[in-house]
């Protein structure tokens, strides 16, 4: 029996080892583990390949004019103000309830034009803000003493005020109107006496832009006082504008498209009609954008344009004095003492 037991155990061990051995060898031979996957390509994830092209930074606003002190009245519409609060609003379309788009820069009413006003005051000029019909002084009253007028919101002018500005422009008062997309109707209403009109929609550019399709690059079409030294500027939201009997002063690149038609082409975004300059964007005046590309140069040119030339000979007789005088008698009666207060505001 002892021999049989030994044989049995031996046979068991032999068979057992054979089975396990076959399993082990088979496992090694047959099992390749999980399939080898290809690595996920990541070359196109490198920052170099996806970083957007941007324009240069660090431009400065400089005026060349040596004109004596001019008075520039600045009207900024009815936006809100506040530290870091407001943003410039870009209504995309006209209508009863226009959708609004943010062109992406901090607005605030007076903050939005500080590069321009700072340049003017630095060069000895006076800036007076006009806050609309609720202001202490009427616009005709202010314009009668002014050399230039700036509005970033022509649609916010009352009919009376718009008439006053029209008279001011007719009399040779240098006037800058900026009109953002969505303000085509108001701009046309305001500008038609001077052959200036706005077109609906906005201009965008998917190829040549400053890191966003709305931030189009704009170049001068001709050399003039407004475009001297300007190679290209950035508009954060450009509205097409046009003028009768003339070509645009600034136009977008050929790769740009108009939102309404999607047609590619160069669109005029700034026009000049005698003493009236119209630019289809107000964002270039804002502090965040003034240093981009040649925006600073353009702002300097605008400032020069506003203060260069003879003082307009404009009088708002009955037409200008009566309606606002009826509304705000004290304001109409006290234009002379006012100038000190707005200039105080300008430095705020």
């Amino acid at each position, binding site marked *: 029996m002892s021999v049989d037991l030994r044989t049995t155990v031996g046979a068991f061990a032999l068979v057992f080892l054979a089975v396990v051995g076959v399993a082990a060898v088979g496992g090694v031979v047959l099992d390749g583990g999980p399939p080898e996957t290809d690595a*996920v390509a990541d070359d196109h994830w490198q920052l170099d390949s996806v*970083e957007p092209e941007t324009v240069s930074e660090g431009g400065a606003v400089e005026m060349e004019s040596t004109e004596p002190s001019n008075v520039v009245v600045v009207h900024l519409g009815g936006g809100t103000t506040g530290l870091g609060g407001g*943003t410039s*609003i870009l209504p995309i379309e006209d209508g009863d*309830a226009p*959708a*609004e788009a943010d062109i992406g*820069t*901090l607005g605030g009413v007076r903050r939005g034009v500080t590069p321009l006003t700072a340049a003017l005051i630095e060069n000895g000029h006076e800036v007076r803000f006009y806050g609309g019909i609720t202001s202490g002084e009427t616009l005709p009253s202010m314009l009668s003493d002014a050399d230039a007028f700036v509005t970033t919101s022509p649609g916010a002018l009352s009919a009376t005020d718009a008439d006053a500005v029209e008279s001011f422009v007719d009399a040779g008062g240098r006037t800058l109107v900026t009109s953002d997309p969505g303000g085509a109707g108001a701009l046309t209403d305001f500008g038609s006496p001077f052959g200036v009109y706005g077109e609906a929609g906005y201009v965008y550019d998917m190829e040549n832009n400053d890191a966003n399709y709305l931030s189009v690059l704009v170049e001068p079409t001709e050399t003039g006082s407004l475009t001297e030294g300007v190679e290209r500027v950035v508009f954060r939201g450009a509205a097409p504008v046009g003028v009768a009997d003339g070509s645009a002063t600034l136009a977008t690149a050929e790769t740009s498209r108009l939102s309404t038609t999607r047609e590619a082409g160069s669109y005029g975004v700034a026009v000049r009609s005698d003493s009236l300059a119209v630019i289809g964007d107000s964002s270039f005046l804002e502090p*965040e954008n003034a240093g981009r590309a040649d925006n600073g140069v353009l702002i300097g040119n605008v400032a020069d344009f506003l203060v260069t030339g003879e003082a307009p000979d404009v009088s708002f007789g009955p037409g200008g004095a009566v309606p606002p005088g009826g509304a705000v008698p004290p304001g109409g009666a006290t234009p002379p003492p006012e100038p000190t207060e707005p200039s105080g505001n300008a430095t705020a």
Partner: protein
Amino acid sequence: MSSEDPPSEPPDESTDEPIDEPTDDGDPTTPTGSSAPADRSAPTAERTAATDRPTATDRPTATDPSASVLDRIGTRHAVGVAAVLAVAAGLLVAPGVYGAVTGPDGTVAVIEIDGTIDSGTAQHVEDNLRDARMNDSIEAVVLEVDSGGGLPAQSERMYAAVDRTASVMPVYAAVDTLGASGAYLAIAPADRIYVAPSAQAVGSVGVAGTAPAPSGPNAGTTGPDKRGSDPDTQRERRQTLANLFIENVIEQRGDEIELDREAIAHADAYLGTEAVANGFADRFGFVDGAVADAAAEAGMEDYAVDTRRTESPVPAGIPLLERDDGTIVVADGGEEELGDGLVLAVAPEAWDETVGDDVVMTSYTGRLPADGAAAETTSDEDSAATNGGEGA
């Protein structure tokens, strides 16, 4: 043991009777008269004992003729027993063999990509795709897609998982209504994209968020960018995110998509029928067709389908609340979640579902000025009411 000494084995009843009784190695008290009928009636049970007995008694070997007869009888029994055992063993093994022969060649895993893409979605997809790669029986994957996107990085995570899986097995995607923005990014590496002809949003290659805006001074932060970078940087980073998205799509489907980069970057979301025409998708179809095609591509004539649904219909990453009326909205805390700097890869069709009504996330119209917000909200409500009336 018994086979080792067959000559000495006389295990049969006829010889047992006379010889065994005097030399019985069993109980000596057993009545001798009863042993013969007992052995005869139960020969099989006693066989082992009978086998031992001759050996133990060392009885002289039987004559040759009688041994061959005995041997023949023993072999016949052994063959019979072996046959019975073989039948039993065969019956045990047969179902397995039958199953192996008639069962599926492999499995097609159907993995759902549904709703807002957040961490939960990405985990679900990545886990199941990893399982598909590790599991030998899964030989093809179909992604069942109905999502308008979500967080870009989570979409990218799924993109990588799909790309990795597609390198080892067929991965097809089937889009119902939405396969847009982040969801489109996720399925871009798939070998083939099926869309319903009436799919409403395929593509939307771009990102969206609040418009860049500067932040005011804040004495509570230790640096000017702690509350958000400057607008130019915000703008550039947003474009960088969009470029990553575009490059991913071009990397995966640049050969199929017939639009140029600029057209892709317009971020339009196409109908299914348009998507097949412009190459954003490959063909019309639904999950079943995709499963069949994927199985065929993997060489499986016979296949099983393993459907992996998302566990919860409510995405976990973005805090949600259920209102009394049963609608799900983003909780108030979501406003912090979806901060100013957070850019989403979400198609317009899925925007409300993603960020909810309570979150002021004016993706297309920009952020409202603080002071004007109240007035604008009022007018929005008015216009919404008006729109609702028109819709009804």
